[in-house]
């Protein structure tokens, strides 16, 4: 009698749960509802406040919401965009920025010089902990907002900053302001192209120096698109055309920035035509992408630079000839074509081809694959009998590190092994402690297209990413002279001299220049990506 009840219960429960499951859908609208809009895949940005955004996902979204002061032309030279003019005085210290009149923020506020000053001061103020704060360090007064910790990692804390305004920023009138640098720098206009230099409207601030709560979710910019609704975390960010925009008007009416956690999921959607542009085709899909996408599988130059660093503090790698020998044992072209299926280019210089002043093969003989010469040189200089290459496991580096090791093994007849570490930060800790973990896999992506942005952080003694402890007084001097040089051309000349020192000393082995490897759906055309790994939103268009 009661025997039937459990079955009914189970059937009822099943029906209810399926019903509940079914009913939840339909609350989000179709991203392609507007015909002339595109869907571009990104990962969840960490932040969207311009001064706090240094990851590529966030800066791509910002590029749709904001209009930069300067941008780069085809020849990588800075050109004014939101600025009428950007000029510098004879000392190369005081930059005057005039804004184009008539621009407004998405909430109707006119864009004034004060908007820039407020945003930059907020970004530079240490207690605000903005990721992009370091971009402002050339501006006079930055040090007052970022007092140094007197004993580094020691117990004493850095004193509180005395002011939250940089003395180098001065408003002249509503459309003009001056930026005084703490030291002359003739290429500061290139630096200002970065997304942390966007302005913020008055509405962004609750009071002086305090961002209003929730502003990041409902960002207001000065760009061609405005935010539709709010930032839907982990799901999407929808932007639509801003009708009052006075600048160059894009051909599309809107962008849906679709958020993916996993590149392969995005790739599946791209092949399914659910996603219009994927800016980074995952390595796992490289082999099938030409067949899946055909002509719609593309690549273009970006600024990534992959290399192997030497622990130059370790005695066995002190000798530059040992370092050169190992470099000559590596066949870069073979790895680029076999492991990376030509999605990268072999690197034989210390700066990326995207910057002014790049010279092909500035590394010279030391970067040419020559196994016999490598072996002779290695034996002559008594290189170590065992070579380790340490890499972080979470970055998909195993295959090329192993391939590189095999080449070294074959050429130098020494043992070479790839050593995985779980995370990049673990490698970094060990290097900071001057622990000899062998050769280290490293990479660099520029912030602004100047040689200095490669050579400074990577190779100067105090460089922020000089993990391998290489230090060369002549190099440091040349870099300083370069920064202080009067014209961009003179700067490049000094920096090239500095690069020549690298070729003699080989503190690292240049391996590859990365490329944007992207694909797009049948719904869009004219898709191009720039050297900052951003889709060109002004060129892309939909096809019927």
């Amino acid at each position, binding site marked *: 009698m009661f*025997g*039937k009840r*459990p*079955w009914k219960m*189970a059937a009822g*429960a*099943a029906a209810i*749960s*399926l019903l*509940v*499951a*079914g009913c*939840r*859908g*339909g*609350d*989000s609208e179709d991203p392609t509802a507007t015909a002339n809009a595109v869907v571009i895949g990104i990962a969840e940005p*960490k*932040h969207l406040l311009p001064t706090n955004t*240094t*990851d590529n996902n966030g800066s791509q979204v910002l590029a749709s919401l904001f209009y930069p002061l300067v941008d780069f032309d085809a020849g990588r030279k800075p050109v004014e965009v939101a600025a009428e003019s950007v000029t510098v005085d004879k000392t190369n210290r005081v930059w005057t920025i005039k804004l184009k009149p008539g621009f407004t923020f998405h909430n109707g506020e006119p864009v004034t010089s004060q908007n820039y000053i407020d945003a930059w001061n907020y970004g530079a103020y*240490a*207690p605000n*902990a903005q*990721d992009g*704060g370091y971009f402002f*360090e050339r501006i006079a007064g930055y040090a007052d907002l*970022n*007092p*140094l*910790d007197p004993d580094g990692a020691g117990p004493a*804390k*850095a004193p509180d900053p005395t002011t939250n305004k940089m003395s180098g920023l001065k408003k002249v009138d509503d459309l003009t302001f001056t930026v005084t640098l703490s030291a002359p720098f003739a290429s500061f206009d290139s630096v200002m192209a970065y997304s942390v230099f966007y302005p913020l409207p008055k509405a962004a601030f609750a009071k002086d120096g305090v961002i209003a709560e929730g502003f990041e979710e409902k960002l207001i910019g000065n760009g061609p698109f405005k935010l539709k609704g709010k930032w839907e*975390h*982990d*799901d999407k960010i929808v932007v639509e055309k801003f009708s009052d925009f006075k600048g160059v008007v894009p051909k599309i009416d809107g962008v849906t920035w*679709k*958020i*993916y*956690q*996993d590149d*392969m*999921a*995005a790739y*599946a*959607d791209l*092949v*399914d035509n*659910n*996603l219009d542009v994927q800016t980074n085709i995952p390595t796992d899909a490289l082999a099938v992408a030409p067949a899946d996408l055909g002509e719609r599988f593309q690549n273009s130059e970006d600024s990534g630079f992959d290399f192997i660093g030497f622990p130059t503090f370790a005695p066995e790698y002190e000798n530059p000839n040992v370092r050169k020998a190992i470099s000559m044992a590596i066949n870069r072209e073979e790895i680029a074509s076999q492991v990376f299926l030509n999605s990268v280019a072999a690197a034989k210089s210390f700066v990326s081809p995207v910057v002014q002043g790049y010279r092909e093969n500035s590394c010279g003989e030391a970067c040419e694959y020559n196994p016999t010469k490598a072996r002779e040189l290695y034996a002559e200089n008594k290189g170590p009998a065992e070579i380790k290459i340490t890499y972080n496991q*979470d970055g998909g580096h195993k295959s090329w590190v192993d391939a590189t090791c095999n080449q070294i093994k074959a050429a130098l007849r020494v043992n070479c092994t790839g050593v995985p570490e779980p*995370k*990049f*930060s*673990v490698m970094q*800790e060990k290097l900071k402690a001057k622990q000899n973990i062998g050769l280290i896999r*490293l*990479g660099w992506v520029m912030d602004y297209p100047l040689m200095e942005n490669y050579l400074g952080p990577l190779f100067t003694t105090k460089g*922020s*990413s000089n993990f391998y402890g290489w230090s060369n007084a002549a190099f440091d001097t040349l870099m300083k002279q370069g920064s202080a040089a009067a014209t961009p051309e003179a700067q490049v000349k000094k920096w090239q001299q500095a690069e020549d020192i690298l070729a003699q000393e080989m503190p690292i082995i240049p391996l590859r220049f990365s490329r944007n490897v992207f694909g797009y759906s049948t719904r869009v055309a004219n898709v191009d990506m720039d050297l900052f790994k951003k889709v060109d939103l002004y060129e892309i268009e939909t096809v019927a």
Partner: protein
Amino acid sequence: MFRYIVRRLLQMILTFFGATFVVFALMFANQDDPIQALAGEKPVSASLRAALTERYHLDEGFLSQYWYYMSNLLTGDLGVTLTGRDISALLAEAWPRTLQLSLMAIVLAAVLAVTAGVWSAIRRGGALDNGILAFTLLLLAMPIVVLAPVAQLVFGMELGWFPATASREISFYTLMLPAIVLATTVVATQLRVTRTSVVENLRADYVRTARAKGLTPRRVTWVHVLRNSLIPVITLIGVDLGTLMSGALVTEEVFNIPGVGFNLARGIRNEDGPLVVGFVSILVIVFLVVNLIVDLLYAALDPRIRYE
């Protein structure tokens, strides 16, 4: 019954605190440099590091960090992630999605396992039985990290039966493929347990009696035998919830469903202590509640079981 439930609920509170403590300790031990983990390979400037360290108390010891967390938790504040997002809001967004997905997987798995299990038990030794056993063997041998991408490739991208990901919108249809994949992780064991249990019960005295009474074979198997065979299966379903949740970590990533697994994976990658602890704590609660329900179901299935 009521007193039993109250007692179990009180035990849950203890378990909850114990579990948060253990998870917090594990996250703390795993944490070497969350600021760098968040920044990826970009250098972090000294003043930024100092400000973030102070904001999240990263330089303080385990006990004092745990104290900050617990004192906030007791006032109902789950804290913020290292990127400044409110964890309770994250939980509220992520849980319904995962719940929907796992509910679909549970129902799919249970329906399939019980029907196929009983069929297989009745025709023991036959072609169908052997076929089903071979099939479950295949499923058991396939880890979800393989199954999920393969299913996506075959049924989503090649055949186009299902959307390749659930990105467009979370609906019954878009969640179907992930739910099937998730169900395969538990269906094999459930099926085999059902089969064994039914086979055993088919030989029991009461079955002979029922048959002797002249009941139809269908009624004997599907009512008398099945009801008595379900207890181990129900227990298993309760325990399988854990498997489903760990499976959700993979499925949600592959099919891009911003649910619990998706957030947990990110939290672990970024060494984001509060995020992981918050999500796991709720997971613990769900697990406890489901197992309480399972225990209560025993009584419904077997009148001899009473809770005092």
